[in-house]
């Protein structure tokens, strides 16, 4: 089992790498198609702003690579935090910007709501839907995960794998065919986070 972690120059990939190490899975950090085409699954991390991430992705031609891997080869893909957000069609951070378009929907600033603090930062548990079964297959009741974001993904209900229990407007995870995304940070969520990564690897194994 080998997982490819997409390296497009943004953010700290080492935490994700060591999280996979903890569950005994080896990883490779690259943006090259020639290497990624041989892995069992791809992880798309993300730190920073939507527009900055998309700039770097286009620069490294990772957008084309991902399209080939995910749409042609049907390789499983897991987007993490901003990595999940850029799977959408559009983002609105700083300015309106095209995403990867791998999942229907767009990314908007969290709307104002009484008692809602922005960014959504802290540990939350989630409500899992039908499409989330694969991703959350190893999760236990009361597992919570670390979120830290000001923007949320708006997508069709069928693509919502999970929402935040205490605020169902916040999509916690998405799922669309072989494409998955988690708004939270599994590599920063201690054991519950490791369970998510393990589930993803098990899914990759079954393909």
């Amino acid at each position, binding site marked *: 089992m080998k997982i490819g972690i997409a390296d497009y120059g943004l953010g700290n990939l080492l935490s994700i790498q060591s999280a996979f190490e903890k569950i005994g899975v080896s990883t490779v950090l690259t943006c090259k198609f020639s290497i990624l085409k041989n892995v069992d699954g791809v992880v798309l991390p993300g730190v920073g702003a939507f527009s900055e991430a998309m700039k770097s992705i286009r620069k490294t031609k990772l957008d084309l690579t991902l399209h080939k891997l995910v749409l042609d080869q049907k390789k499983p893909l897991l987007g993490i935090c901003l990595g999940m957000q850029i799977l959408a069609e559009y983002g609105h951070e700083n300015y309106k910007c095209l995403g990867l378009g791998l999942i229907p929907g767009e990314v908007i600033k969290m709307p104002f709501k009484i008692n809602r603090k922005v960014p959504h930062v802290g540990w939350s548990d989630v409500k899992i839907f039908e499409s989330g079964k694969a991703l959350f297959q190893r999760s236990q009741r009361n597992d919570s995960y670390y979120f830290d974001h*000001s923007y949320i993904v708006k997508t069709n209900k069928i693509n919502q794998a999970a929402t935040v229990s205490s605020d169902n407007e916040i999509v916690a995870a998405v799922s669309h065919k072989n494409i998955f995304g988690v708004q939270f940070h599994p590599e920063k969520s201690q054991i519950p986070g490791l369970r998510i990564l393990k589930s993803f690897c098990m899914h990759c194994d079954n393909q």
Partner: protein
Amino acid sequence: MNAPRIVGTIIVRGGLHVQSLGFKQYFPLGCPVESAKEFDRWGIDEIALILLDKNFKLNLKTISEVSSAVSVPVAAVGGVRSILDAKAYVSGGADKIGFNYSLFKNPQMVHEATKFFGQQCIIASIDIVHYKSKLQHWNYWENKFSQYNITSLIDKIKQVNVGEILLNFPEKDGSGTGMDLVAIKKIVKITQIPVIALGGVGSVKHIVNCFKSANPSAIGIGNRLSHFEHSVYLFKKGLKDIGAPVRTGVNPCYDDSMIDHDGRPINKSEKELEELNFQRIEPQMP
């Protein structure tokens, strides 16, 4: 909403984790990585590194060693004077960066940082003191009060568009006598930005009172976490027992124990201890 976070605060001076008293006196504890490892294993929700040195290389070393040793988010506060510094911190492993001095001396740069790293990555760290029964903002680099009152201060922070506010209370720091509930409540009320309150926690009661009356998003605990074994487990168990919302880890340590108001475990009865001779103590597996 979410369970409020307990943030393990590690104050670093000269590469050492130190206890702090009023941010004036410091006492050495040991290697910050060792402290961070313990907090992480005990179920802390987040770790904040308060870096008090001007030695950038040393700060970077601390950040990278701590972040690679733990599996919770690490915020690095202090020692960042430019976007380049911030980039180094983030590549070194920091999940969030905190600014104090630069917030006031170079707010443009901090605003740039929120655009580059995303708002959620940036923390405004401010020191609040009481003077003539009013809340005042303290500039540590000038050793005097700033021109801002609390409202104008929060407005200024809002303009910069940070993701969180770290409220430090130097007068409470290291006292272990409780938090500044009045100030925290006031600030939490006037802003939508999540607040981390830091300074004065000595017991479970202090944490409960703060969440109940002031309701910040997170409470930072500093010195106290290093005073006894399993402090995080015990504080969280104490909170759970009172019915306060808290993220309890997967680990069942202390599930069947009682905690005193100080956060130390109350001894089990002789009968319970005798029965332990016939029970299997299971280590937790992920």
